[in-house]
């Protein structure tokens, strides 16, 4: 769809900064990891090893990788339920994420959260959240806490474009702008809320313009280009950290797979032609070609990296498959804090 085309990278004409070569190669590896991890998760789902809902991130990898690279170790992150990629890009191990998808005790939330509720508090990764828009006010609260304590932390919220029609989005952004909080609202506009196209759900096509209601800085970003994504995120993080002001980033991206495992890739709400057209802007192919063109990698090293990632994913799968289930008594732990926790 031409109408979903995001503004293309302005940095493309310039050569890549060789001083950042390791970082750039690391982004490719992270994107490959997410891609292959999700492919494997889809396979495991089909085999019945993953239950419940499973929302894959294939096609959107550059968004999580490019944006999370701009954050510091103390920053706070919340996500929607399509968060496997963010968890991996933030540094939760592929084993811990896969084991969580399998519902195992060695998963990053002990098998209690599952695909939609990945957490690692030590990384500031404060959850995948299952109610559309529900985590947006939480992120405003984390930014409030940073301001309250006078730290330089920022709080980042990832959500899909369907969430912007929800009252929680409006309420949370209004308060963040009103109180000048170091918050960053990153809308991953993949064009569809489940099967409902953006223009069938939102009276306003350009989501970034919603920021005008809150007098908030905003930007439209090409989410299929990891470098563009990273640069936009760095501007927003700087604004939050230094000026204590929030930003709404509308990141235009595309979900290559169905909404969840039960949704075919194309069918009722989008055509095969549309999906195939979007796949031509594969963020991973684009970035690896760029690295090769700029001489930071060659085809052999890309192939070797790919192989290495596939190996890691296979190990994560084996780890998850062999990991133990949570002990039966775990049913009743962590309902309440403290000794007086009831059953």
């Amino acid at each position: 769809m031409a109408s979903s085309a995001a503004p293309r990278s302005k940095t493309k004409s310039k050569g890549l900064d060789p001083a950042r070569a390791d970082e750039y190669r690391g982004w490719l590896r992270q994107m490959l990891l997410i891609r292959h991890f999700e492919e494997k998760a889809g396979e495991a789902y089909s085999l019945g090893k993953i239950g419940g809902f499973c929302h894959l991130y294939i096609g959107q990898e550059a968004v999580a990788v490019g944006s999370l690279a701009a954050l510091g170790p103390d920053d706070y992150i919340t996500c929607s339920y399509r968060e496997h990629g963010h968890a991996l890009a933030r540094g939760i191990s592929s084993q811990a994420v896969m084991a969580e998808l399998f519902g195992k005790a060695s998963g990053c939330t002990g098998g209690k959260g599952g695909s939609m509720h990945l957490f690692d508090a030590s990384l500031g990764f404060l959850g995948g959240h299952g109610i559309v828009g529900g985590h947006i006010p939480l992120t405003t609260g984390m930014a409030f806490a940073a301001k309250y304590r006078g730290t330089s932390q920022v709080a980042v919220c990832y959500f899909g474009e369907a969430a912007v029609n929800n009252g929680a989005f409006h309420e949370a952004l209004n308060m963040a702008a009103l109180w000048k909080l170091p918050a960053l609202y990153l809308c991953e506009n993949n064009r569809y809320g489940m099967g409902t196209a953006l223009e069938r759900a939102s009276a306003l096509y350009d989501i970034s313009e919603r920021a005008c209601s809150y007098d908030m800085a905003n930007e439209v970003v090409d989410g299929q280009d990891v470098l563009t994504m990273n640069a936009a995120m760095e501007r927003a993080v700087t604004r939050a950290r230094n000026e204590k002001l929030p930003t709404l980033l509308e990141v235009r991206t595309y979900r290559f797979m169905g909404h969840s495992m039960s949704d075919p890739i194309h069918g009722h709400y989008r055509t095969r032609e549309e999906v195939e057209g979007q796949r031509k802007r594969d963020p991973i192919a684009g970035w690896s070609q760029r690295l090769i063109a700029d001489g930071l990698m060659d085809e052999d090293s890309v192939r070797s990296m790919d192989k290495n990632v596939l190996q890691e994913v296979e190990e994560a799968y084996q780890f998850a498959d062999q990991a133990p289930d949570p002990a039966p008594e775990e049913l009743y732990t962590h309902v309440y804090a403290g000794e007086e926790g009831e059953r």
Partner: protein
Amino acid sequence: MATLTYRDALNHALREEMQRDPNVFLMGEEVGVYQGAYKVSRGLLDEFGPMRVVDTPITELGFAGVGVGAAMVGLRPVIEFMTWNFALLAVDQLVNSAAKMRYMSNGQVGVPAVFRGPGGSALQLASQHSQAFESWYAHIPGLKVVMPATPADAKGLLKSAIRDDNPVIFIEGEMLYNIKGEVPEGEHVVPLGRADIKRQGSDVTIICHSKSVGVSLKAAEQLANEDVDAEVLDLRTIRPMDTEAVLNSVAKTHRCVVVEEGWPFAGVGAQVVDTIQREVFDELDAPVLRVTGADVPMPYNKQLEKAAKSDPAKVVSAVNQVLYRD
């Protein structure tokens, strides 16, 4: 010991906890400049400033979520709802975020927050402003539900709620703010999860909470004139419920009436009755009866409203039934 109103007892608890712990802050509609819709937060903005006494837009879902998010990263918010009727807009944050966070994160992230404000009916405020929601929140694992009936309990329970590491639903009585009572000064802490015998008795146990405690005590006075010695047990905390206190009292009196302001269907009393019949069935000399609000939205008309509310006469009548005195 000072004599304070329920309102001022809450105010003292807030002030003392904010003095004690810099992570405690108060957020809600009209809590600052306006000094609180019910003046519970009077003087706090002057003492603690606008970063710790935060006026919000009318956005219950939003600021409840802000409170949960701030608590997830270690602050201890006290979130004021102008009334619990308005908190219906925030139920997603209370149930899906606050109550679940510790469990979903496998213990990594807790929500040490208090959500407080007046619940129940006042006078002629009609259907949308006269509701008792404690049974809703008590239904949710992960939440605690606290409902003080006296100024002393208001202070002591609010201090405990603020210090608790769990999300606490703290429902004040809208008609209780002006009642007066003796309140210990300084460090007066009432533990959560402990009921209190407000009147000792031997013939029947009246179990109640919040505004229904006053109703029950009045009924007990009337019953005393008829030589019926009623014990009045104030639950104080709905969840976790002090089942031991409930069972001990019923085992002593062998008869029980449960009084609450809310609707009958799946109300707090239903849970109390279930516990009693399972645990001390053989101690009972009569079926346990319940006195509740009428099973209707609250009407505006004064006479109809009176008919819809539990009152001492209805409690006396129920007690007479369990004593087979009718």
